[in-house]
């Protein structure tokens, strides 16, 4: 883009800056849209899971609800509570925003479609998302509200604890691929499910579970939404926030959901890889990638509307007593497994296919249960058959 600007007669330096600003704006708008649309998607899905419809008034099927919400939030009075630490209170939401949007740099939109394929991509990813905790902690502290403070403290304790299992969980794919770069990790996987890292061995499955649970906690999603536990802490760290600042918190939360899905897909689920004969179609790759991300996002939303919330001590128990030992076992196990089987690819393929078959079996079991539960819910009530005609 800067080349175009230079050809229009601009000096290289301003051209670079202008093009950077334009790219940033594009990314920002894309993320805002994604975050906004996800709020509607979540509300619709939660509605369907609770036998109701959810928002369906603004736009076709309620798809523009997020715009209406955004306009409402921006028009609201911007309130800073008395006795608040004004500076911290004002900048806290943007820390959250930066923490999430910073991941854009290495976010893979498909095979070979990314802003920068850093050679420390994953490391950068984990580091920049840790910025979110600063924002949350600042918001909790500066609000001059005890509920906010408790929420901020919970968030700090939670995110610091869960960084470790998440990092350890990510070590297994790194071990498998031998690189920290996002593009590199995607490149070692194939298009078929048994070529994905998640199905490589029992240990990768384990690390996937640990990583997924841990990143749920980092994204403050149920069952780990303690920092803003509605029924306990009013609204946690964002109790005192109104208007635009609240919208920013909201947006970064849902954008974080998207980032979570993107990272999981890229690292464990084969990214946007296509079979060889389709490899030239980048657009298709992006599509496949987005489909996988949507599935992960759906699962996260689905979990939220199924599970109750942990208590703070149980949360810590889970992290330190279950996830962390599990992550170590997975890491060591994968290392030993790779040592043993490094010269016999046949065993590796067999194990991978086997893991995939187990997954398919669980899926079938699942759909059988779904059918049973559907039948139970469909037992008629208030049917015309029960009307007794008046004689």
């Amino acid at each position: 883009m800067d080349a175009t600007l230079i050809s229009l007669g601009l000096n290289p330096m301003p051209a670079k800056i202008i093009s950077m600003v334009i790219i940033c704006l594009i990314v920002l708008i894309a993320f805002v849209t994604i975050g906004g649309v996800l709020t509607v998607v979540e509300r619709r899905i939660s509605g369907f899971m609770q036998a109701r419809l959810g928002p369906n008034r603004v736009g076709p099927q309620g798809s523009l609800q997020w715009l209406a919400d955004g306009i409402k939030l921006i028009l609201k009075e911007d309130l800073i509570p008395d006795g608040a630490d004004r500076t911290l209170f004002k900048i806290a939401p943007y820390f959250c925003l930066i923490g999430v949007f910073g991941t854009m740099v290495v976010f893979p939109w498909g095979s070979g479609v990314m802003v920068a394929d850093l050679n420390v991509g994953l490391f950068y990813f984990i580091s920049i998302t840790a910025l979110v905790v600063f924002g949350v902690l600042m918001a909790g502290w500066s609000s001059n509200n005890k509920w906010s403070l408790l929420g901020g403290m919970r968030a700090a304790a939670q995110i610091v604890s869960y960084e470790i299992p998440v990092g350890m969980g990510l070590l297994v794919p790194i071990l498998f691929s031998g690189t920290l770069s996002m593009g590199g990790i995607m490149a070692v996987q194939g298009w078929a499910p048994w070529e994905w890292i998640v199905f490589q061995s029992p240990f990768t499955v384990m690390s996937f579970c640990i990583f997924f649970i841990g990143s749920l906690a980092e994204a403050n999603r149920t069952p780990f939404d303690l920092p803003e536990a509605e029924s306990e802490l009013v609204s946690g760290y964002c109790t005192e926030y109104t208007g635009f600042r609240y919208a920013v918190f909201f947006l970064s939360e849902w954008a974080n959901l998207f980032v979570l899905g993107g990272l999981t897909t890229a690292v464990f689920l084969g990214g946007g890889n296509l079979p060889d004969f389709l490899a030239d179609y980048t657009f298709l790759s992006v599509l496949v990638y987005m489909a996988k991300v949507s599935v992960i996002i759906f699962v996260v939303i689905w979990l939220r509307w199924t599970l109750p919330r942990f208590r703070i001590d149980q949360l810590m128990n889970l992290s330190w007593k279950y996830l962390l030992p599990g992550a170590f076992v997975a890491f060591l196990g994968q290392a030993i497994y790779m040592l043993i089987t490094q010269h016999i690819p046949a065993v590796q393929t067999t194990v991978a296919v086997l893991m995939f078959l187990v997954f398919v079996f669980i899926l079938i079991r699942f759909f059988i249960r779904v059918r049973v539960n559907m039948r139970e819910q469909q037992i008629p009530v208030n049917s015309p058959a029960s009307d007794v005609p008046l004689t």
Partner: protein
Amino acid sequence: MTSALKTEYLTINMGPQHPSTHGVIRFILKTDGEIIHECDPDVGYLHRGIEKLAESITWQGFVPYTDRVDYVCAMNSNLAYCMAVEKLMGMDSEIPKRAEYIRVIVSEMNRISSHAVAIGAADMDMGAFTPFIHFLREREHINDLFEMICGARLTYNYICIGGVNADVSPTFLSKTAEFLDHFEPIVEQINRLISYNQIFIKRFADVAIVPPKMAIDYNLVGPNLRGSGVKFDIRKDKPYSIYPEVDFNVPIGTGRAGTLGDCYDRYMVRVEEINESIKIIRQCLKQIPDGETKAIVKSSIKPPKGHIYFRTETPRGDTGYFIVSDGKTSPARLKIRTGSFTGMSIIPEIARGVFIADLVAIIGSLDVVAPELDR
């Protein structure tokens, strides 16, 4: 060596503006971080002076007010008051049999809907929103059925002194039977969704343990008392209406997931009571006779001088009406004894040393309903 660092407790005001107390209850908490050191409940935000109001309106005119005493189970409130007045007038043997059966059917239906709300609200306080909506969906069907017989969805004013206000149609009976067939598997399904969930069990088990002795000392009633393993149910131990004629069990806490008398026991007692109520209604639907639904009662009654205390088993436990009559057209004094109040009074005792998150679980498991608490 004593700690040189001086610390003080954090005083937090939980409620009335708090999502889990929604404007009607207030707790003043002294906490050490997240651990509650002292919990001081503050009641009276929904006090409407219903007991005093009774002294200025007629005996029949007070029936709609009993709907408002506990609007989650208005039928049971109606029943408690009407039976007390009938007893006072000495006409409790004149109530037609069909009216008695209808009374039991509707009050057990209301017990189901009340417990459904109680369980759902407990789930919602734990952060699981879906079971609550599922229970409300089923409660809508009960409301529909009630609307069919009395024309109102929440404050029914259906049971009246001398019987019931209107006869039920055969359609109502068949629709009720159909609803029960629909509802029974749903209860089990929602149990699988939430009650047997590992996270949920861990949240409720071993929290706020009330030993049997303590439950009796604090005068807990109803499911809260039975959750502590004390087998006492007015329907069985001091039977009224047609309860002696139907067969049902009294579920009690057994320490299902941990210790006897914890939150999970109280919660599961309610779940099992729903199933017992379904059993009772099924029997009543089979046995219901034909006939009148209301005894002849004058439009303006004047019970003889005297007083009465009559207790019935409502979803929130033993609800008693103490009525003094001086032979005039309105009660001289009326006092309502409710289960929520004693449930609330035990909270400071059991909420010591638990997390803030557990306090929400305690409120949910005790099923404190603010209008009944404050009257």
